[in-house]
C-alpha cells in the first residue's frame, strides 16, 4: 500500500500494490473521492484519490474498501501527516522500530497486541476508527 498526501492541494492518494494499468471511475463513497480500478477488470479496486482530504478522510475512512491492516495504515499515516510528525517520532511514540513503523504505513506489518494497544492508547481517533470498523464487520 502506498500513501501520499499532497498538502498544497489537500489531496490524498492511496494505492494498493498493483502493477496493472489503472483508470479512475466515479466512486460511490462521495463526490470528493475517485476510485482507481483495474482497467481490464473494473471490479478490482486499485486505489483512491481523496480531494479535500483534511476535512473528509478520517471521518469517512470506514466507507473505503480497506481491510484492517490497510485501515490502520491509512489512518495512522493521515493522523501523522496532519500533525506534521515524522515517521521517526511516530515509531518512538508507539515503541516500535522505524522499519516496523514504515511497514505499518504500508499495511505490511502484523501487529503484536502491544503495538495494537499502543496505537489505540496514543491515538484515540484510531481506537474509534478501528472500533467502528469491527462493529460494522
Amino acid at each position, binding site marked *: 500500500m502506498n500513501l501520499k498526501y*499532497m498538502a498544497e*492541494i489537500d*489531496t490524498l492518494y492511496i494505492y494498493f500494490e498493483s502493477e496493472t*494499468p*489503472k483508470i479512475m471511475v466515479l466512486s460511490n463513497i462521495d463526490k*470528493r473521492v475517485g476510485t482507481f480500478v483495474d482497467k481490464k477488470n473494473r471490479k478490482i479496486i486499485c486505489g483512491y484519490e481523496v*480531494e*479535500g482530504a483534511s476535512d473528509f478522510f478520517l471521518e469517512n475512512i470506514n466507507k473505503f474498501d480497506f481491510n484492517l491492516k490497510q485501515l490502520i495504515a491509512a489512518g495512522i499515516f493521515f493522523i501523522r501527516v496532519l500533525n506534521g510528525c515524522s515517521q521517526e517520532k511516530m515509531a518512538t511514540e508507539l515503541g516500535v522500530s522505524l522499519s516496523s513503523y514504515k511497514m505499518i504505513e504500508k499495511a505490511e506489518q502484523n501487529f503484536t497486541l502491544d503495538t495494537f494497544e499502543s496505537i489505540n492508547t496514543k491515538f484515540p481517533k484510531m481506537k474509534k476508527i478501528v472500533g467502528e470498523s469491527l462493529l460494522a464487520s
Partner: protein
Amino acid sequence: MTKIKKLIKEYEFNGLRIKLYDEDFEHALSAHPGEVTLDAIRNCIQQPDLVIRSVQGKNACLFYEMKIQDEYFVVVVHVTESGTGEIKTAYKTTYIKNGTVLFKKENKK
C-alpha cells in the same frame, strides 16, 4: 533531512509556467507505470481539451486530454499564489470532475 526536489521539465500554457519535479513525476510513474510518460504529460499540458479548476481540490487545476470515448488523460496541477503551476500527478480517468471551466478546446474531431 528534507529532500530537495529537482526540476525535470518546465512547460507553458496560456502564460502559466508549469513545473514538473522529480518527486511528483516518480509518484505518478510508480502508481501508473506505462501510462504516465513525459510525452503524455507534455501533450496534455500544452494541448489540453479542457482545463478546470477543481471544486474540491484546493488550488488544483485539472488538464484533460481526451484519448478515446470516455477515457481521458488528466494532469493535476497545483497553482501557487505566485501564479506558477506545479504538476502533482497524472493518471487516466473515465470522467471529468466538477469545477470552473478555465479553457475548452473547440472543434475537437
